[in-house]
């Protein structure tokens, strides 16, 4: 059973509940200098009342062809064949940051010992039928974990509408 993290940008408000739930799940302590695995962003343009705004939640994208896996010289990262998550065992991590440099989303973080840590999709929870912490907490169901098999035609239509929505707002920006 392979999974996809899905963010509905029409519902996300960038509140950060997902980021906090992730820190709670993974014992991330920002005050000690830990980097969060998941973060929210508010991206806006312009100064008018209807100027476009987007709220986003971002963490590891669990890429199918994950550059971090290919970039790691110590073989710490791999794709989990069951879930499709990009998982890791940091025992042999040499802290070289090759994974972070290869990653287009800056998902790999480094712990206080200098070893790589990142979102593992809450794989142990998902294996037991539980949702990832970030998905479970989301007050609006904006962040979801969906099975790849069901992410089919119906989802394609939804994504198309979402893209169109973004593009139309983009047009509105241009005209202002």
């Amino acid at each position: 059973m392979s999974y996809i993290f899905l963010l509905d940008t029409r519902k996300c408000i960038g509140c950060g509940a997902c980021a906090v739930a992730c820190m709670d799940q993974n014992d991330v302590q920002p005050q000690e200098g830990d980097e969060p695995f998941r973060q929210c962003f508010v991206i806006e343009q312009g100064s008018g009342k209807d100027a476009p705004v987007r709220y986003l939640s971002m963490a590891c994208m669990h890429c199918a062809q994950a550059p971090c896996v290919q970039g790691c010289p110590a073989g710490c990262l791999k794709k989990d064949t069951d879930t499709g998550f990009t998982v890791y065992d940091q025992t042999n991590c040499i802290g070289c940051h090759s994974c972070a440099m290869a990653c287009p989303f800056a998902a790999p973080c480094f712990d206080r010992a200098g070893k790589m840590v990142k979102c593992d999709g809450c794989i142990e929870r998902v294996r037991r039928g539980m949702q990832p912490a970030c998905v479970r907490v989301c007050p609006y169901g904006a962040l979801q974990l969906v099975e790849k098999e069901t992410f089919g035609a119906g989802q394609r239509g939804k994504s198309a509408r979402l893209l169109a929505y973004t593009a139309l707002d983009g047009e509105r920006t241009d005209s202002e």
Partner: protein
Amino acid sequence: MSELEQLVHAKIPGPETGIEVRHTMCDICTPGPQCGVDAYIKDGVVIKVEGTAGFPTNNGALCTKGAANRQYIYRKDRIRTPMRRTGPRGSGKFESISWDEAVAAVAMGLNGVKARHGAEAVAFMTGYPKWYRPFLHRLAYSFGSPNYLTESSTCHRSEVMSWQLTYGSEMRPDVLGMPEVLVGWACNPLVSAYPMGRNYYQYKEKGGRVVIIDPRRTPTAVQCADLYIRPRVGTDGYLANTVARLIIENGWADMDFIQKHVHGFAAYRDMVMGYTVEEAVRITGVPEGEIRELAQLIGTAKTAIIQPSNGLSHHANGLPSHRAVICLNALTGNVNKPGTIVPTFETFADMAAGFRTREDEFVEERFPRNARPKIGSARFPLWSEMLPEAQGMDLVRQWEKGEPYPIRAIYAHGVNNRMYLESSRLLEMAADLDFVAATDLFWTDFCRYADIVMPACTSFERSEVKCYGGGFVNYTSPAIAPLYESLDDVEIMSRVASALALDDPLLCSGYDTCVKHMFRDVDVDLDAVKAGGVPLKIPCPKTPDYFSAPLDTPSGKIELYSERIAKYEHSHGLNPLPVFVDGYDSPENGELPMTLITGGRIPNAVHSRLHDVPWLRSLRPDPAADLNPEDAKRMEIGQGDEIYLTTRVGRIKVKANVSAISAPGEVNMYHGYSEANVNQIIPRDHLDPYSGFPGFKQVRCRVEKAEVRK
């Protein structure tokens, strides 16, 4: 890692990991959601939280604040033992004492002031949370003081007054009854009350049409609004009355409904006829097209909801503005039908659940009838008449003047001086008093001024009865033992009541007995609910139809013209009609060209209590003011630059968040920060004469780059 280590690391509950899940609840924000929480516990310590699946309000989810419960509970500055002050007030010098010593010292201090100045000289004060309020209220009354005062002097009660003055009852929006149009006026539920926010999303998904009216471009405006209207802050009353005029002129008013159920329509009509679209454009800054569209949307919809929020009443012109907005529901006959506003009433501890308890009786039966008038009675008579509590915004004045009688002691639970305008004045007051007792979770500024400090515990560490809409009753059990030597607030009050030797055996008997006393008519076995661990749905008695008897207003009808306000027309200059009045703190002034807005919610904070929770602070590390990009450009202020906000009473330094959240000319600042307390620079005479509420949202100010002025 071994497989077991991986399971422990992933916090998977089960006998092999020794991790157990216990149900509790979040008590961080208002009583609105009070979400069910599953606490993951290992060796008596909370290691993770998540929302309880199937819980009436949150159904598995949590908000940003609730997700941080673990760090909130284990905040480093939790008060650990009862303490007695050893240095000067404010010095922070204390020594640890036993509970018996603490409670005896409190009793001696309070009874001493009572003997010298009378029981009224003791103010019983509270901030957050709200679960123990009826107990503190009864404690004040049994002691003999009418001076029970709460943070509701600045938060929700003005809105309740407005509903009661106009409709004789608090009303709630039946959003999922699918009105044709939903107007959220100063409503930002996606951030401030997410169960209501979910209703907004559900309403939209079913094809509903949303208008958001707010000076701040909130996430709700962005994600929900089909039409977003941005009036200048504090001009809502003018906008509402202009819309009313357009509705009447276009023949959209529901005259049958008005004839049957409304009092004072003629006077109201004459008043709104003085409001013009041209003047509305000039005052509110809203384009004419949007004003007319709004009037048409409300006026021609089969059903509409005009839903205000507390924020509307947080102005020096707050109560009349709020009333102007809610009058639109009655004007269009959108009352007491599916998809309109419908009556609601509080069941227990500020929560509406659809059935009644004896909570009011529990408090009122101890009212000290021979006591002198409560604080604020002369200055805010409408508040004093309508609410069984003192208006806290008049406390400092009464202490300063000693009129009509001196205030010489405070007994406090959860008091935050930063909820008071020119907040440091409350600390100066505390420094001067004969006796101060403070109970809190954390070492607040206020605690440092107390003679005796007592440690309370969180909702995870106590038992508590809670009711929820739809007829749910819950009675939690502690998920963990109280930390350090802390006790729950009501246990502390019971011990204090005993030590004071009050003739109140019920209050002295503790929480469980008192709650069962208040629930004695309710068909529920509280012990069984507690044993069950989750909310139980009980049958709610059918309440009579709203219009089946005269409404609880002097005329028995919906009052556009308020007869209750009319009593104070000559003595206090209050207007029985919801007229628009200017809400600024001072006349126009070139030195203070901008307008400061405070109090609007951000997702990661509620007042002060979460600013020191590292997870939440990491989302927005610095106190920051939202400044429109146009203003920022003009003043050469960049994102993250340090800026000064200056009003006629003070100045704070914060960072700039350059964002169209704020309109040009307005600057929005979240409150409650110790290093940048925006309420310190709001003048303390900037109050609504109807409710006594602070004008948090409309203060003349100056914004300047910090480097410019050394």
